[in-house]
C-alpha cells in the first residue's frame, strides 16, 4: 500500500514535469494577449494594423504598425530569395553529391554558422556589409533593408541546409535506384526524383527559415538603421522585432502597451508559421 502511494507520488511529479511545456506556452500566450489587447482597444484595430505612421513620442502620438509589418514581410521575403536557393543547393550537394570528407567539413561549417551568436552577425554586418552597401550602391547610408536581408539570409542558411538534408537522406534508395536503372544520370536523379520525393521536408525547411528570419531581433537591429519608415530597399527600416526592442527600455503608458501589442502581432505570425511547419513535417512523415 505504501509502495503504491509512493509510485503515484512519483507519477504525479513526472506528470507535472511533462505538463510544464504546455504551461509555459499557455503562460506566454495569456500574457501576450492580456498585455497586448488594451493598446489595440484604445488605438483601434484598423488604425493600429494599417496606420502608416509610427510616432510614439510625438505630441499627438500615432501608433500605426504597417511599416513594421511590411518591413518584416519584405525583409523575410528578401532573405528567403537570397538564402533558399543557396541553402537548398548546398543541401542537395551535401546529401547526395559530396565526397565523405568534403561533407564532414562543410556540414561542420554549417553547424558553426548556426552557433554564431546573432550579435556577432550584427557586428560584422555593421562594419563590413553596411559600408559595403553604401559604397557599392552610392547611397548615403548603408544601414538599410537590404543589409538586413543579407544578414538574415546568412543566418537562416543552417536551418534550411540541415532540415533539407534530413529530408533528402530519408528518400528511399529504391526510388533513386529505379531512376538510375532507367538511364537517368545521378544528377538528374537527385533533382528530378530525390528532390520531389523530399518536397515536404524541404518545404518545412523553408518555413523554419521564415520563422527564424521573422523572429530575429539583435542582428537586424544592428544593421537596419532602425527608423520607422515604410520599407524600401535602401532606406533605414524597423522590423516588428526591433520595434519592440528599441523602445522598450524608455517607454511608458500607451507607448509601452503598444509595444506589447506589436509583440502580440509578431506572436500571431509565429503561431501561423508553426502551424504551417507542423503541416509540412507531418505530411513528410506520412509519405
Amino acid at each position, binding site marked *: 500500500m505504501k509502495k503504491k502511494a509512493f509510485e503515484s507520488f512519483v507519477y504525479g511529479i513526472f506528470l507535472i*514535469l511533462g505538463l510544464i511545456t504546455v504551461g509555459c506556452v499557455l503562460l506566454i500566450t495569456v500574457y501576450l494577449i492580456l498585455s497586448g489587447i488594451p493598446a489595440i482597444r484604445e488605438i483601434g484595430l484598423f488604425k493600429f494594423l494599417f496606420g502608416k505612421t509610427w510616432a510614439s513620442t510625438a505630441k499627438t502620438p500615432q501608433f500605426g504598425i504597417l511599416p513594421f509589418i511590411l518591413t518584416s514581410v519584405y525583409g523575410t521575403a528578401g532573405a528567403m530569395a537570397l538564402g533558399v536557393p543557396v541553402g537548398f543547393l548546398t543541401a542537395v550537394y551535401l546529401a547526395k553529391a559530396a565526397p565523405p570528407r568534403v561533407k564532414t*567539413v562543410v556540414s561542420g561549417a554549417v553547424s*558553426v554558422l548556426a552557433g554564431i551568436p546573432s550579435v556577432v552577425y550584427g557586428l*560584422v554586418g555593421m562594419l563590413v556589409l553596411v559600408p559595403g552597401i553604401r559604397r557599392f550602391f552610392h547611397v548615403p547610408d548603408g544601414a538599410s533593408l537590404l543589409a538586413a536581408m543579407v544578414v538574415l539570409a546568412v543566418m537562416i542558411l543552417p536551418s534550411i541546409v540541415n532540415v533539407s538534408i534530413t529530408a533528402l537522406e530519408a528518400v528511399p534508395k529504391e526510388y533513386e535506384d529505379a531512376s538510375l536503372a532507367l538511364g537517368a544520370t545521378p544528377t538528374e536523379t537527385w533533382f528530378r526524383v530525390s528532390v520531389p520525393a523530399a518536397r515536404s521536408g524541404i518545404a518545412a525547411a523553408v518555413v523554419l527559415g521564415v520563422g527564424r528570419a521573422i523572429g530575429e531581433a539583435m542582428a537586424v537591429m544592428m544593421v537596419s538603421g532602425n527608423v520607422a519608415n515604410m520599407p524600401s530597399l535602401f532606406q533605414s527600416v524597423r522590423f516588428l522585432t526591433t520595434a519592440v526592442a528599441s523602445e522598450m527600455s524608455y517607454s511608458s503608458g500607451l507607448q509601452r502597451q503598444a509595444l506589447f501589442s506589436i509583440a502580440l502581432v509578431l506572436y500571431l505570425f509565429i503561431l501561423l508559421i508553426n502551424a504551417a511547419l507542423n503541416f509540412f513535417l507531418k505530411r513528410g512523415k506520412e509519405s
Partner: protein
Amino acid sequence: MQTGISRKRRAYILLMRALMGLSAAVTAALVLFLVVYVMAKGLPELSWTLLSTKPSYLTGSIGILPDILNTVYIILSTLVFVLPLGAGAAVYLTEYARNKKLVAVIEYAAETLSGIPSIIYGLVGMLFFCSFLDMQTSLLAGALTLVVMNLPTVLRTTQESLKTVPQSYREGAFGLGAGKWRVIRTVVLPGCVDGIVTGCILSVGRILGESAALLFTAGFAHAVHGFFEGLEHSGATLTVALYFYAKEQGQFGVAFAIAAILMALTLVIQLAAMLAGRWFKRRREQ
C-alpha cells in the same frame, strides 16, 4: 561513359552540378570569412587587463570581467533548472504517458516553444519574472527566462536517447519484480545520460549566444559580484555587452574582442557536440 546523352541533358547536368558546387562553396566561404575576420579583428584587442578588470569611469578603461562572470552565472543557473525539468518531461513522455492526445499536446507545445523568437521570451520574462514575481531586472530573471527557452532542446535530446534504451531492459527489470520508479531509476535514467549531455552542450551554446531575451530581463550592469549575490543583481552577459559596446558606444575594439571570445567558444561547443555525438553513437553500437 555518358555517350548517348543529348546535348540538352548534358547542359542541364553541368549547370546543376556547377550551381550545387557554387552554393556549397559560398556557404563554406562565408563561414571561413566570418571566423577569420572576427578572429583577425578581435584577437589583437584581447589583453589581460581587458579580461581581468571591470569598466571604470575614472580611468575611462573598459574591462569585461563582470560580463564573463555574468555569462558563467547565467549558464550555470539555467542548466541547474533546465536539465532536471527537461529530462523529467522526457521521462514522462516516454515512460508514463498513455494518453496519445496528451502526448501530442505536449509535443506540440514543445515545438511551439522552440519556434518562439527570443525577443518575445524577453518580453514575457520581463512581465512575469521581473514584474509579477518581483525579481526586478536580475540575472536570476534572465536565467529563468532562458530555462523556458531551452526546455524544448533538453526535452528533445533526452527523448531521443530514451528511445534507444531497449524495451527488453525495462521488461527484464519489471520481471524481476521492480516497481516503476525503480525501473526508471536503475534502467531508464542511466540511459538518458547521452541526451542530457547533448542537451547540455546545445543549451550552453544557445545561452552563450542569446541576447534579445536577456536585454530586458537581466539588464546591462557591469559590476563584479559573487554567484548568489550576482543572481539578484542586474548584469550584462558577453553578448549583451557586445551589443552595448558596438551599438551604443561605438567601442568596436572591445566589441570585436568579445566577438572573438564568443567565436572561439562557439567553435569549442560545436566540436564538443560533434565529439559527444560520435562517442555516444560508437558506445551504442557496441
